[in-house]
């Protein structure tokens, strides 16, 4: 009764297809079909940000997003950021600012900060806090994350003008 369907979409720039069940979510799709574990289901309620995936240019909580809904969509995960063999400015900034301890929440933070800087290249503290209110770090590296966002903004600006 719950027929498997074949969906096709773009994953990190490459055309792909997968057989999915209607009740599978986007995180399950990425992990079981493509071995991508950057997005991980954690709170399961869209509150923590660990399952962040970019669908058609917008961040979504992969745990609350049916896999079927990405049929025909452009999907990007954290694994795409160093696709050219080089870390992105946001990834570099998180390392330089030590903006993580265990690293579990880091892929979600990295993607959300990348989105944030696309929208607000030079964000103030209030904008950063507003944008990241849905990302939780149980190691509480929030002060370092704030530093990393500002550092990433400077790196991106420098790269753009270079």
């Amino acid at each position, binding site marked *: 009764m719950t027929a498997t369907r074949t969906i096709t979409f773009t994953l990190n720039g490459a055309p792909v297809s997968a057989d999915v069940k209607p009740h599978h979510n986007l995180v399950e799709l990425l992990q079981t079909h493509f071995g991508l574990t950057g997005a991980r289901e954690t709170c399961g*309620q*869209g509150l923590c940000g660990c399952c962040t995936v970019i669908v058609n240019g917008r961040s979504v909580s992969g745990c609350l997003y049916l896999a*079927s809904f990405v049929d025909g969509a452009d999907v990007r995960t954290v694994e795409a950021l160093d696709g050219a063999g080089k870390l992105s400015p946001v990834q570099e900034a998180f390392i330089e600012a030590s903006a993580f301890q265990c690293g579990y929440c880091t892929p979600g933070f990295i993607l959300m900060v990348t989105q944030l800087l696309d929208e607000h290249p030079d964000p103030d503290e209030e904008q950063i806090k507003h944008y990241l209110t849905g990302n939780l770090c149980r190691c509480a590296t929030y002060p370092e994350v704030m530093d990393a966002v500002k550092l990433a903004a400077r790196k991106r600006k420098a790269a753009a003008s270079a």
Partner: protein
Amino acid sequence: MIPFELAEPTSLAAAVKLLDPDDETVRPIAGGTALMLMMKAGVFRPQKLVSLRKIEAKYSGIAASGDGLRIGAMTTLNAVERSADVKKHAPVVTRTMRTLSNVRVRNVATVGGALAHGDPHMDLPPVLMALGATLTIVGPKGERKLPLEELFTGYYETVLDKNELISEVHVPSQGAKKGAYMKVTTGSADDWPALGVAVVLDADGGAIKSARVVGSAATTKATRLKAAETVLNGKTVDDKLLKAAGDAAIEESEFIADVRGSMPYKRELMRVYVGRAVRAAMQGTGA
């Protein structure tokens, strides 16, 4: 999650036909953020979901005219947050959006879903209700209009038949009216609220000509607080008046206790926050 079937009709009319008025296990799904939570928790076990994501594009857009805004039910909360038309015609909605859940949920959740779900903890329904919004509802027999304040009948309960869908929300222009939405979250900043209070005031200086006050989250459903409005109407704002409005509000509210607060706590929040929301509206602050 337990398995279910997924239908993806390409028109609103086809979606209505796929719904069954007598079968609670067949349900429409829009953004799905709220429904996914219920399915994961096992409190909702559908046989079939009817996705509205592929219906006509005209149901996901915002149009402004002389008398206000028409917001398609499939419009995402993010689109509402960013809309210049919404900011112009209903700035209290724009301010509310920033405090509503988080970026990722707003990117996916829809206006129609936020209303049809009937969850008293949602932030948008009380604000739209205070603005006097009306709904267009489509069913097998055609269209009907309904004032939003008549939508909710109880905790997660609405007047919608199982084969009716909200297609559009009409929001009258706020114009010179002052509005505010205040909420209290007892967990994290973006957690579900323990209380929401929305007020829209037609005011002249410190004098209130007429007020619309709506309470939510602390109550079984988003509820217009008419006794509090009566206290406020035609009066000049001072501490005594706001205390009287808060007292009236708690007398007419049906409170619910949950993990975000006990009944006595929520009563006290309501008593205080009705006045604070009126003050915030008068001062043009408050999300």
